[in-house]
């Protein structure tokens, strides 16, 4: 039976962890993630969720406890944002290095300074190389669905890596939308009972997890983790297909392209800016303009092949970044340029929506206009444009 509920992205994330039968949750409150841990606490205290909840004293301890619980053979979940994610930073590559399928919801919020609690992707960008699989969601339905998918992907033996499910602060975390909630039977069918992907800490079968490793063995460890991240691409697509088959919702796998087949220009977006861009594409198409949209869902692993195939067919590509790598441009822009290396087409970077600044339909229309102009002239007016920023030329 399909139950629909009007709920926030935070509720969808918490609900997804409950239906995935996470058995140990260690988390610490931080705006705008806090409701996730509150909902989980309520599920547990109401007897709906059978789970050890560890009220740790910091995010650093939250991730540490998740790593060690996972190493001890149970399914784990946590959630955080911004500064909390930064505090976890040290432990994130330990989770991936130990090949532990920890799943975490990250409610993307600006990183200080200046201190700000609204949406921005600058909090997770420093974790790009942490060995975590990272998916960006565009709506609350996707948040719930991706938490379930995250366990399937992370716990696949070919992968065995931790995964972050990212949702935009407030725009998803605190905004209610109708969500088809997955019931327990259906969830159990999709997310099987937890089986650890490697040796665990168990007094009946002695193993060490996390030992001092000299240079003689280090390269092989790194190579295996890198291979797992590469292999994850196929698993992500498989899991997406399996999910679509069972639940009738196809979120697209690595990317979710919209009207790109005959497009002259495409814009690449992450998170909720995708919905806004979707509207603008419809408007521009109605005006006869051949524009398309690529929702970049997975940031790690990066969909290099998928994006390159699209780039080969269009005349200009724009990349919208809700983050900036100071002095270089948006991280997604930089990544795309690497994927499109050698292709002779204008690539434009639009940086906007930082610290919760609204990204309007007009803003996106402006981006497409710039791209159409670049397609016509074969030249980008400028590489990097800061959208709606006082004192900065558009």
């Amino acid at each position, binding site marked *: 039976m399909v139950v629909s509920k009007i709920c926030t992205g935070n509720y969808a994330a918490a609900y997804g962890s409950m239906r995935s039968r996470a*058995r*140990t949750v*260690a988390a610490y409150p931080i705006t705008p993630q806090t409701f996730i841990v509150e909902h989980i606490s309520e599920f547990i205290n109401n007897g709906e969720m059978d789970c*050890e909840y*560890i*009220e*740790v*004293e*910091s995010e*650093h*301890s*939250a991730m*540490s*406890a*998740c*790593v*060690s*619980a*996972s*190493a*001890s*053979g*149970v399914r*784990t979940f946590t959630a955080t944002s911004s500064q909390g994610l930064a505090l976890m930073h*040290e*432990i994130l590559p*330990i989770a991936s290095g130990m090949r532990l399928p920890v799943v975490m919801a990250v409610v993307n919020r600006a990183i200080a300074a200046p201190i700000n609690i609204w949406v921005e992707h600058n909090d997770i960008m420093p974790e790009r190389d942490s060995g975590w699989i990272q998916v960006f969601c565009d709506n609350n339905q996707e948040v719930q669905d991706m938490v379930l998918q995250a366990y399937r992907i992370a716990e696949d033996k070919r992968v065995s890596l931790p995964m972050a499910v990212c949702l935009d602060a407030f725009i998803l975390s605190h905004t209610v939308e109708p969500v088809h909630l997955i019931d327990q039977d259906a969830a159990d069918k999709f997310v099987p009972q937890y089986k650890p992907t490697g040796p665990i*800490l*168990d*007094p009946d079968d*002695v*193993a*060490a*997890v*996390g*030992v*001092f*490793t*000299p240079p003689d*063995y280090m390269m092989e460890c790194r190579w295996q983790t890198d291979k797992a991240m590469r292999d994850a691409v196929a698993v992500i697509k498989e899991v997406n297909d399996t999910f679509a088959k069972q639940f009738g919702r196809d979120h697209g796998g690595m990317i979710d392209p919209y009207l790109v087949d005959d497009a002259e220009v495409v814009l690449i977006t992450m998170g909720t800016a995708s919905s806004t861009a979707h509207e603008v594409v419809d408007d521009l198409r109605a005006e006869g303009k051949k524009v398309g949209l690529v929702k970049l869902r997975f940031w790690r692993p990066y969909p290099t092949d998928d994006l390159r195939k699209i780039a080969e067919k269009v005349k200009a590509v724009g990349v919208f970044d809700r983050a900036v790598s100071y002095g270089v441009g948006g991280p997604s822009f930089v990544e795309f340029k690497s994927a499109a290396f050698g292709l002779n087409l204008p690539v434009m970077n639009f940086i906007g929506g930082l610290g919760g600044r609204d990204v309007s339909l007009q803003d996106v229309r402006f981006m497409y206009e710039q791209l159409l102009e670049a397609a016509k002239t074969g030249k980008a007016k400028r590489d990097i444009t800061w959208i709606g920023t006082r004192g900065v030329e558009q």
Partner: protein
Amino acid sequence: MKLKELPDEELFTRGHTACAGCGAATAVRNLMKILGKNTMVVNPACCLLIFGATYPYLAWKVPFHHVAFENTAACATGMTRALRVRGKEDTLVMGIAGDGGTADIGIQALSGAAERNEDMLYVMYDNEAYMNTGIQRSGSTPFGAWTTTTPVGKVKAGKADFKKDMPLIMMAHNVPYVATASVGNIQDFINKFEKAKKMKGFRYIQIFTPCPTGWRHDTAKTIEIAKLAVETGMWTLYECENGKVKINRKPKMTPISEYLKLQGRFRHMKEDDIKKLQDWVTRKWEADEKYAQCRQ
């Protein structure tokens, strides 16, 4: 259990690469005999990690886990909760860290786990400096001691501050069990680990473990120095069981100069500073005794 009743089986085996005379290795070898096979260990970045668990070798005969430096108590929490999920609550989780990993960088996670009364045994092996990185000052280094970050220079020499009182801090958490132990007083050591093993909830034992390399002493004198630390009052042997404090050994109050003179780390100390440290030790012992009387 008496000393001669300790099992022959080694759960922390020979072949590890600790320095000769290492107090920490002595402590771990013996405490594992008491805790037994049904134990899981988590250990931060420290000497013990390196000399006991450098791939492809492992001295531990029980599950061994290392994550980072400052999170031993948080990791032990994850382990103990996971064991509960798996219905294996009878397995003891031991977090074991040095003084830097406990009193300095690890104190936040430790305090959190203690406040939540997590079911674990937390052991601090106290060698009074960051030995693994090469003898740097920690919060647990005693006043006057030379370390590589409190070098003996022309205008300053040795640590200017006094040793952090971790056992008292842990007793303030009102956990089921807090004790101090020493590798120099092995029967007292055995009694405390036996007691801690049988209890549930958060247990903390701080072991005094001399480090010949860092303290600059004869490797044959580890036990002698540990005993002198107790007899001079530098290290109080006491325990706090469910809120009640008991002094386990009344020191002879041997002058601390007897203790200091065996160790190169104190060699530079002038009379004034020795007196300052002696006064601190005298006051500390009196305070410990009064504290024990208050919490009978």
